[in-house]
């Protein structure tokens, strides 16, 4: 069950109004290595993952990723809320505006809608956790790309936070993998 807390996990303080970033940030909203993918992937995998440690971790990281979805959405929302149509067009968001005005929508940076094809679940904890490890690395590298695309210090601060979380999540999934491997080894001796 989910309870919603009415605050961001980490503050988003955009200083410059670099609307082009809004288009790029979509990749971490509805893109393949974005926060929505991460949240759905982990929250879905947890049903068939063995060991309480792994179930707890997938639940908790999955929940944190939803908080990250909110942060990305906040960044896009604040960048576009006061933009004129001309400014949106100049930032490459003209076609987006045509269909959705300033509404947010889970797509990648090119407008390709989010799909469950971005995630997987195999009920094989070794396979699932390796996917999760890879996902965290991919997200980390995307944040590094996004950091290279902006010089707004407030934006950079939030992106750096999100990048660091990916590194920590990777570490935790590595530990869960070891726990699951030990569990599988133990099952062989009865």
């Amino acid at each position, binding site marked *: 069950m989910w309870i919603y807390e009415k605050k*961001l996990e980490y503050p988003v303080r955009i200083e410059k109004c670099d609307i082009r970033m809004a288009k790029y940030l979509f990749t971490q909203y509805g893109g393949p290595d974005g926060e929505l993918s991460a949240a759905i992937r982990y929250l879905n995998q947890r049903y068939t993952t063995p060991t309480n*440690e792994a179930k707890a971790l997938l639940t908790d990281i999955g929940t944190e990723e939803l908080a990250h979805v909110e942060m990305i959405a906040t960044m896009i929302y*604040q960048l576009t809320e006061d933009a004129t149509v001309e400014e949106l067009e100049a930032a490459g968001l003209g076609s987006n505006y045509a269909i959705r005005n300033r509404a947010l929508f889970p797509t990648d940076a090119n407008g390709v809608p989010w799909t469950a094809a971005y995630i997987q679940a195999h009920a094989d904890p070794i396979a699932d956790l390796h996917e999760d490890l890879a996902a965290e690395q991919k997200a980390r590298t995307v944040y590094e790309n996004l950091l290279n695309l902006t010089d707004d210090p407030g934006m950079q601060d939030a992106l750096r936070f999100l990048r660091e979380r990916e590194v920590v999540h990777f570490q935790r999934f590595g530990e869960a993998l070891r726990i699951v491997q030990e569990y599988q080894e133990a099952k062989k001796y009865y």
Partner: protein
Amino acid sequence: MTHDRVALLQKLQETEFAAIELNLYLDTHPLDQNALMQYNQLACQLQMLKQQYETAYGPLLNFGFSPSQFPFRWLEGPWPWERQY
């Protein structure tokens, strides 16, 4: 948001973030007594900060996890995605 509110919110975010970090760590290290003690201390601090914030600015949680003054303050802005600084 007033300066005081921003400052209190930041303290809350910092404390809760520390708790989240420890939560994830404890998920894979359930036997780390030290970490668990820290986690419980943070939980206590978090409760106090939440109460302080909520008394002044309204409920932080829905579904019965935070009480509300009259009229129902849960719906008050600003919402987290709106500009607050």
